[in-house]
């Protein structure tokens, strides 16, 4: 099998395997060859060849045994996976892209990793990201920045930079990510792939390096909505190891649906091509019989301040455990951004500032949640831009943290409210950089978002394209 012939969806991959057009081992050969050829992208921190071939051998045996209901029992059979290097992988180095964990070998795997492997998935490697998931560009990695596969001068977005770049460039079929303030949706948007941020509490965080515990959501990237849905269905649900996860009834799509367009997401500072592409996407839904209506989320403008108080506060607490004693290196090895966030979080929680910053932010957070609840009384989903601009250039925002933080403005509100979001690609701008939009829904409405996403793909006759590397 040639590097250029790797199938682009789960169903094509599994059809090829079951019809014996190629073996899982040949598939792994092709992926590893392609990863090696695309080293300049810096999408992976660690590639695990031995483990990948071992798993491919198991998959090939399953197929030659001709088991009945093989795809029902192994829904990710033969799927090449990149795991964000925040996900613990037993026996495989896990760094969180930080020097603090440079040589850390976990003794257990995250629930999501274990479930994907049990479902027949093949772990190809650990993808690059902003260290500790702190960033919106991938540039805060202690292992060097990942490049945007569509144009190496541009960032792939962050923090799940390597996962998005890997899926976009065909270096894995799907990839995992975490979304605390936009870290799946924004890089999906910058790289032109589908990215799902599930409802807070839908997927277990067990075994994933914690960033901000009231906001962290565990999701995935794929080249199609159907693939992100398959991975979500494999990974979701209680595991007895994360008490915020509950098995619950999901909201089902209605026969006649309504989408809201929030006016606060089309303000000054939003790139013209971005705004136009989102409106164009809304017209696709309208043509398909979905009613559009303008809605208002009045506290959107305060979301950034709330987010950059709550999130660093929780970061400062979660990164307190890295003492260099039980595992990892001393705290001096934290990079500049981790230190900034620890400092910021410690400051807003410190005596004399707690009420003015943290408590106030948590009250405004309640009002942001109320905004969404009011809107979801009227509509099934909200359609909005993911980021005010397409991918920006490497180095453009690194000297100014505040400017970098503002890149999260349209993604962080969903994390503060704990609601799901699905980022979809919708084409390219004049410079050839990906454009897209996000759909947000009420808690546990993932089936509604998948249905709408698939409708969009169908109506636009969406074709997966790969960048020329």
């Amino acid at each position, binding site marked *: 099998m040639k590097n250029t012939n790797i199938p682009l969806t789960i169903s094509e991959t599994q059809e090829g395997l079951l019809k014996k057009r190629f073996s899982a081992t040949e598939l792994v050969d092709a992926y590893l060859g392609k990863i090696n050829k695309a080293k300049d992208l810096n999408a992976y921190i660690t590639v695990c060849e031995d483990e990948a071939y071992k798993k491919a051998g198991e998959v090939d045996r399953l197929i030659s045994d001709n088991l009945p209901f093989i795809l029902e029992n192994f829904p990710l059979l033969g799927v090449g996976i990149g795991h964000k290097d925040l996900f613990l992988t037993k026996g495989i180095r896990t760094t969180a892209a930080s020097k603090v964990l440079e040589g850390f070998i976990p003794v257990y795997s995250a629930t999501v990793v274990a479930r994907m492997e049990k479902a027949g998935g093949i772990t190809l490697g650990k993808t690059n990201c902003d260290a500790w998931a702190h960033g919106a560009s991938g540039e805060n990695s202690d292992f060097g920045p990942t490049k945007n596969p569509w144009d190496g001068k541009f960032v792939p977005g962050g923090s799940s930079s390597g996962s998005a770049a890997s899926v976009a460039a065909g270096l894995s079929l799907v990839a995992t990510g975490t979304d605390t303030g936009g870290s799946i949706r924004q890089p999906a948007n910058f790289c032109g792939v589908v990215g799902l941020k599930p409802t807070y509490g839908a997927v277990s965080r067990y075994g994933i390096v914690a960033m901000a515990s*009231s906001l962290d959501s565990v999701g995935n990237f794929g080249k199609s909505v159907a693939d992100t849905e398959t991975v979500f269905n494999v990974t979701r649900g209680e595991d007895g190891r994360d008490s*915020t996860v509950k098995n619950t009834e999901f909201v089902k799509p209605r026969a006649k649906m309504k989408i809201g367009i929030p006016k606060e997401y089309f303000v000054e500072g939003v790139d013209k091509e971005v705004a136009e592409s989102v409106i164009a996407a809304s017209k696709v839904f309208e043509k398909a019989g979905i009613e559009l209506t303008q809605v208002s989320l009045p506290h959107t403008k305060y979301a950034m301040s709330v987010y950059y108080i709550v999130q660093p506060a929780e970061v*400062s607490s979660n990164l307190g455990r890295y003492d260099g004693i039980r*595992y990892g290196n001393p705290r001096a090895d934290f990079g500049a951004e981790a230190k900034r966030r620890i*400092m910021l979080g410690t400051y*807003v929680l410190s005596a004399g500032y707690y009420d003015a910053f943290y408590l*106030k932010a*948590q009250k405004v957070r309640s009002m942001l949640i109320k905004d969404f609840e009011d809107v979801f009384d009227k509509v099934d989903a909200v359609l909005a831009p993911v980021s005010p601009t397409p991918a920006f250039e490497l180095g453009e925002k690194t000297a100014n943290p*505040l400017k970098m933080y503002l890149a999260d403005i349209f993604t962080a509100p969903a994390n503060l409210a*704990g609601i799901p979001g699905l980022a979809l690609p919708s084409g390219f701008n004049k410079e050839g950089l990906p454009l897209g939009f996000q759909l947000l829904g009420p808690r546990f409405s993932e089936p509604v978002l998948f249905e709408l996403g698939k409708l969009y793909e169908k109506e636009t006759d969406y074709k997966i394209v790969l960048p020329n590397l």
Partner: protein
Amino acid sequence: MVKLTKQDVLHVAKLAKLDLTDFEIEKFTPQLSSVIDHFSELSEVDTGDAEPTSQTTGLENVYREDKVNIDQSLSQDDAISGSDKIHNGYFKVKAILEGRTDK
């Protein structure tokens, strides 16, 4: 305009157990000031009687049975495998008490 002083930054660094270099203090002081200054926009919001949010699940008191589950525990060897500063199965740490009087 919020202006953090060098003393503020050193105090917070001490609370967070971070040793900052002079270069880092120089760099972080204005950066943190500008971010904190941005937060002042929150004072415009009349939060009325809004309750603070601490979590979004609505779940309360999730319990498990009070018994040891071996599948969910690490062996001692696994638990200490991340450090090379081990003595007799324990982590070696710096002494936190000084001036023993018993010898």
